[in-house]
Structure formats: C-alpha cells, structure tokens
C-alpha cells in the first residue's frame, strides 16, 4: 500500500465502530427501569439546589490562554527539530550544518529565551497561583 495514511484511517474507523458497537450492545441488552429519583443529578443523596452550569473560576480560562500561547510557540520548534539532521533540511546549507548550524542554533536559543521570558512574565503576574 503506497498511502501511509490509509491504515490510520482504517484503524480509526475500526476504533470508532468498536466504541459505538459497545455502546449499542449495552443499549440493546441492558434493562430499562426509570424512576424519578434515579433521574436526579447525583449529589451524595442531597436534593440538588440549582443547575450545575454556573460561573467557575476565571483561572481555568487564564490557564487555557497560557497553554494556547506556549503550545503554538512550541509547535514552531518541531520543523527545526526535524530539519536539523535531515539531508534535505538544514544540512543543505552551504558548508553543511557545521557552518551555519550555530547561527540557526543561536536563533532557536533566542526563541527559547523569549518563551522563558514569557513564562517569567505570566509567573510574576500571578497566573500560576491557585488558592
């Protein structure tokens, strides 16, 4: 098979079919007995006071934003990581990776330094302090 991605598709579809099939097996075989108490949200035997969809701590949102920033920046490092040893990548520079490689490395270290500076910034802003 030439296409390297086809097996992934086949296996993912199989996994999906397996998951849905197991759920359907439970639906078809299991009994159905509904009672009003069973339909209530579980709160350790108490009657629930109000809906669960209320406000939650803004820190979860801040962490998500910080994650997005760092994750997107990290993704930029992956092409460089793959290209470093690749004959069709950085090794194609005149003189091989030996000559210009240190220049590229300095650039990347600068980039990592910027990431670290961003981390220090949000740290001192108190983003990671959970009470």
């Amino acid at each position, binding site marked *: *098979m030439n296409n*390297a991605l*086809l*097996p*992934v598709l*086949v*296996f*993912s579809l*199989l*996994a999906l079919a*397996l*998951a849905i099939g*197991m*759920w359907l*097996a*439970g*639906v078809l*075989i*299991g009994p159905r*007995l509904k009672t009003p108490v*069973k*339909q209530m*949200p*579980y*709160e350790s035997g108490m009657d*629930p006071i109000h*809906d*669960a*969809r209320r406000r939650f701590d803004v820190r*979860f949102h801040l962490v*998500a934003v*910080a*994650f997005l920033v*760092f*994750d997107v920046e*990290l*993704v930029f*490092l*992956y092409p460089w*990581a*793959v290209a*470093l*040893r690749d004959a069709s990548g950085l090794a194609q520079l005149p003189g091989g*990776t*030996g*000559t210009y*490689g*240190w220049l590229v*490395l300095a650039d*990347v*270290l600068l980039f990592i330094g910027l990431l670290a500076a961003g*981390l220090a910034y949000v*740290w*001192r*802003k*108190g983003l*990671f*302090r*959970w*009470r």
Partner: protein
Amino acid sequence: MWEILIKSFVLAGGLMTAAAYLVLLERKMAAWVQDRCGPNRVGIPLTNIRLFGLGQPIADGLKFILKEEFTPAHVDRRLFVAAPIIMLTSALSVFAVIPFGDVIPPLKLWGWGWDRPIPLAIAPHMDTALLFVFALNSIAVYGVILGGWASNNKYSLLGGLRSSAQLIAYELALSLGILGVVLASGSLNIRRIVEMQAETGVWFVLAQPIGFVVFVTAAFAEAARLPFDLPECEQELVGGYHTEYSGMKLLLFLIAEFLHMVTAAMLIVLLFLGGWHFWGITSWADSNSWLGAILRVVVFAVKTVGVILFFMLVRWSWPRFRFDQLMALAWKVMLPLGLLSVAVVAVVEQSKLSGLESWLGRVPAAWLMVIPAWVVAALAWWVVAVAGPSISDNTPRREPAGWDVQF
C-alpha cells in the same frame, strides 16, 4: 488491504483483552500492596476451577453489558453519549502509529505466506506519527470536558474543569520532552527514533535525563494516574467527570483510561528506553530472522510490562497531589525544566554535527555527550529539589516579597 485489516482487528482485539487483564493485574497489585488476596474466585463457569481469578475480567465485561444503559434526565443527551465514544476512539486510534516490535520476517508454508518482512505496526511509514499522537491526546481532553459538561452535575463539572486544566498544562511538558527526542533523531517516525537509539546504543534516557523525567511526569499526568488522578479523585469528587455515567458508557471511559496508560508506557519505552533494542541481546540475530524478530518483540514486551508495573506500583504507594501543587509542578517546574532540556539537547546535537561526530566517530561521540547532559541534570536537580521550595510542602506557597509586579 488484507494486511491492514488483519493487523487492525488483531490489534484492537488484543488491546481490549489487554485492558481487561490489566484491570485484573492492577487489582492483584493493589491486593499485594495492601496484604490481601485480591480477586481469586472467578474461574471457569459451572465448575469449581478457580484459575487464580483469571475469569474475573470476562465476568466484569459481561456484567457491564447486562447493566442498565441509563441516561439521567438532566443531561445533554447527545454530548453525554458522544463523550465516552470520543474518548475510547481517540485512546484506541493512537495505536495505529505505535509499533509493537520490528518486523515479522518472510514466511512461506505450502505456497501460502508473504515474501517480504511485515512491519509490526499498523502505519509504519507514517512520518508524522508523533504529531498524530499529540493530536489524539488533545482530543481526549474533549472527551473529558464534554463528559463533565454534559453531565450537568457539580461533581462532574468540577472534575472536567480540573481534568482539562491538568491535561493541557502537562501537554506542554509532554511536547518539550518529546522535542528533545525528535531533535536527537531528526524524525517524527517512531520506528526511526528506535533505530537511532539502536544504532548508537545510547538510549535517550541516558542522553537526555531531564527530558526523560519531564516526559515521564507528563505521561503520568496525561494518563490521569496517581499521583495525578485529580480528574476523578474519589474522595473529593465522587467519580469526577464520570460521576453520572454507568453501564457501558462508564466501561468505555475506564477502558480508555487503561489504554492511555498503555500508550504512555509504550511511548516511554519507545522514545526513551530504546524500544526493542537491548545491548548484547538484540545483536544476536538480525531482525529479518525469526529468532531476531521474536527477541525484539519479547524485549519490547518485557520493557513495556515493566513500565506498566511501575505505573501501578506508584499508584498504590503515593498520595495524590493537591490541585495547586499539581499546577505549580506543571508550570513552575516541568515547563522550565523542559525548556532547559531542549536547549541542552540542541547544543549537544549541534556540537555533534559540527565536527564531533566526524572527529570521534558516531558512537563514541554519542557516549561522550552523555556526560554534559548528566552534569546539567544534576545541576537542575539541585536547583529544583535542594535549593528551591519543596513541591510537596503543604503550607500555602508564597512568592518572595516584591515578586508580584504590575507591569
């Protein structure tokens, strides 16, 4: 096409069985740690043969099918059903790119067989395998947060929020740990990474100790195993995001969690512990001979089971982190350590490429560069563990005076 289908079905079946028996293994392990017997009753049905409880997973599976398939009235029905299905699909699909050994050699028996080696992976030629692993890892977060949200239950919502915050925080550490490996091997293909380790004999755990620690910690957190099982800490949140789930849907979540642990163990072995390579053993026979192929599979399986047993032992011997300690560990310790690891590996690799390898030869250069990596690791360990504040300190963490600055 037949090759793909056969491999897919064998792998899916094998993984489901493995997940079921890992539950039994974990219960036996718990029993051993707590000095009791564990499940030892269920054997062959209708007889008195007990077989050390080996029938327990089958009985559990049947019981799950026969349980009521129940959806409470207050939930968002579509998302409630979709969440466990997303979770299991993503947990299972990862194995499409994870190899289980090197190759099966050619075989001809009475005119039937195959004439070229068959790779022991579903998609062996996928060059973006690690990116695929990351992508599916992120989809698992959707399963958790959808499950928590759709349940419309306060325990579930809190569990889902905590869980998603934990998973995304440790995903950064996971990426940084893997980045060092990608840098040293120049490929995202897992087979290629294992080959790189086998060629020099320097496993990446030796060459990148900081990256290994960061990756293993992040893998524990991504698999939501103790000491990072905040998403479903029974004593605080009942069941976390799957409080409202029961029957088959709960089973899907539980299998997905065990598969996450298997994925994590396999990735640790493949990326850092040399995969199916072992000094002196795998060099006996070429991978195209039957002896070599079987040896490689056995070496890989033994390593994987070892890592899984380590996961279980940690679960039964460590207490759980508090949430602020967990986030502090992710952002204040693991992320800086990961950045340090990447910087060290980058400098090491560049110095190898620009002369060290051609001067010393590839293998001695690889062994030599282990020394600076461990020196930096020792320094980092000193800064984090000795000079810095203790991460498991139970007093509220205080930053030094004047730390908070309004920029």
